[in-house]
């Protein structure tokens, strides 16, 4: 060892200053806290996007049979069913559109391509899924009755659903600031056992409405929509925007109540993260956002859902993430 090296190595190590230690350790703690929070969000995401296949399938089968019967009775033809956010062009007025509106749930968003002819309708029918997601937290007594009548839903699953719902009621009564996180987790967990129930069928079977009542209500709502449509800003914009987006990108579609506050609340969150927010002019608001990666879309969705969970009235239909290419296909 040279003299130079000896001199250096024998010099005592410097001690990291206490204030530096404090800063760094505090930062590490803060980061870990954030990281843990993100992991919880990730768990919630997993819960949100996962299903208990047995219960979901059983519920789907149960109500699916009902849907078939109701649609057969309530419509002239087997009109296409729109998915939660599947696109609908309401112009121009055509008999096919009326048929579609009669067959689609009273509360569903309608958005079809401007070229909505028979081919487009048929294509829409092929592509879309006539179901929507309801969380257990939203399960009504009627839905529980449907579940109980099902031969395929086990007693254990029924008990689990009811238990969760009852627990939620209790929690809601006792809700305080410190419980918000816990309840949020519970609610998202509830979605894990959510059922896919067509909204129109849920309403129909729950209220024992006949096909005539459903049709009358759909007509009334259609008229209501037509009034709103006059002040609409959007369907052509929606279509134009969709067609120029990168087909590999992802979009979040979410329907919120078409109230000023609900729209502003969600749109604000989307605006932070997306290129564009579009509101369709229907009873429900349809929002699109473009994300390069699915994970980004999911993260944005988690933020919105976390906020929305604090306000049950905000989001009425479970959101979904779709490839923009799928939407573009509908327009072609």
């Amino acid at each position, binding site marked *: 060892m040279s003299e130079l090296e000896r001199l250096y190595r024998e010099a005592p190590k410097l001690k990291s200053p206490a204030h530096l230690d404090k800063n*760094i350790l505090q930062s590490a703690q803060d980061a870990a806290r954030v990281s*843990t929070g993100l992991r919880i969000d990730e768990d919630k995401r997993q819960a949100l996007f996962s299903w208990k296949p047995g219960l979901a399938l059983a519920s789907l089968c149960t109500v699916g049979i009902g849907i078939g019967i109701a649609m057969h009775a309530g419509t002239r033809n087997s009109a296409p069913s729109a998915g939660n956010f599947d696109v609908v062009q309401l112009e121009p007025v055509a008999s096919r559109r009326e048929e579609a509106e009669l067959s689609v749930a009273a509360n569903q968003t309608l958005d079809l391509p401007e070229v909505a002819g028979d081919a487009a309708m048929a294509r829409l029918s092929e592509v879309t899924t006539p179901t929507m997601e309801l969380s257990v937290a939203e399960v009504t007594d009627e839905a529980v009755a449907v579940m109980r009548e099902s031969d395929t839903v086990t007693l254990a699953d029924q008990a689990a659903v009811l238990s969760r719902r009852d627990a939620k009621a209790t929690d809601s009564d006792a809700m305080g600031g410190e419980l918000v996180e816990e309840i949020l987790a519970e609610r998202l967990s509830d979605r894990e056992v959510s059922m896919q129930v067509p909204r129109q069928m849920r309403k129909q079977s729950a209220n024992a409405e006949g096909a005539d009542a459903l049709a009358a209500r759909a007509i009334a709502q259609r008229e209501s929509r037509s009034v709103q449509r006059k002040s609409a800003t959007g369907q052509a914009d929606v279509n134009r925007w969709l067609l120029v987006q990168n087909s590999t990108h992802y979009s979040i579609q979410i329907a919120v109540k078409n109230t000023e506050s609900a729209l502003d609340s969600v749109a604000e969150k989307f605006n932070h993260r997306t290129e564009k927010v579009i509101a369709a002019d229907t009873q429900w608001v349809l929002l699109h956002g473009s994300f390069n990666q699915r994970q980004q879309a999911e993260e944005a969705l988690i933020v919105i859902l976390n906020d929305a969970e604090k306000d049950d009235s905000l989001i009425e239909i479970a959101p979904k993430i779709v490839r923009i290419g799928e939407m573009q296909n509908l327009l072609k």
Partner: protein
Amino acid sequence: MGDVSKQAIRVTLFGFPRSLKATSDAKLLHAYADGDTAAFNELYSRHKDGLFTFTSRLLAQTAAAEEITQDVWMAVIDQAAKFEPGAAVFRTWLYRIASNKVADFYRRKVNQRTDELDTKNEQFIANQPDVEDLVLFDQLLGALAELPEEQRVTFVLQQEGFTYAEIAEITGVGAETVKSRLRYAKSATQDRMELKA
């Protein structure tokens, strides 16, 4: 409770590591990435003084050394989840980050003179009663400060105990280049110290 803490409980039954003290750097970092702050505290305590000494002697300015040291640890915190034990030894990874930060610092301060030296600091003085060594060490720091950055980093890394291969990994050059830089660094430092003496 993080993975390491759980592991510590589990392995106690078999007579293996009983605490964080007996856990590798990589596992501590992994545990921290999973939210175990105790693991980070242990990791930090292992390397904090060495890293601070390293940055201090490279930068020769206490304030800058503190700033860079903090930046390095922030990078560790940010990138904890991305660290791959198979790709690097933690200590090598840590000093590579530090080395890069120091290089960035010098790039920013390329025109700044080195007459701000103050790292002959009180701690050294307090612990080193030998006045002759104190003077020599002061000269050494001054001579180091005048070396080209890559030679200074290479020299200090070697004095901190890294092998040629590790220094090569940290600085991103070949082992032969490391040896060459060391040779020049020592030669130039000795020359300068003799001149000043």
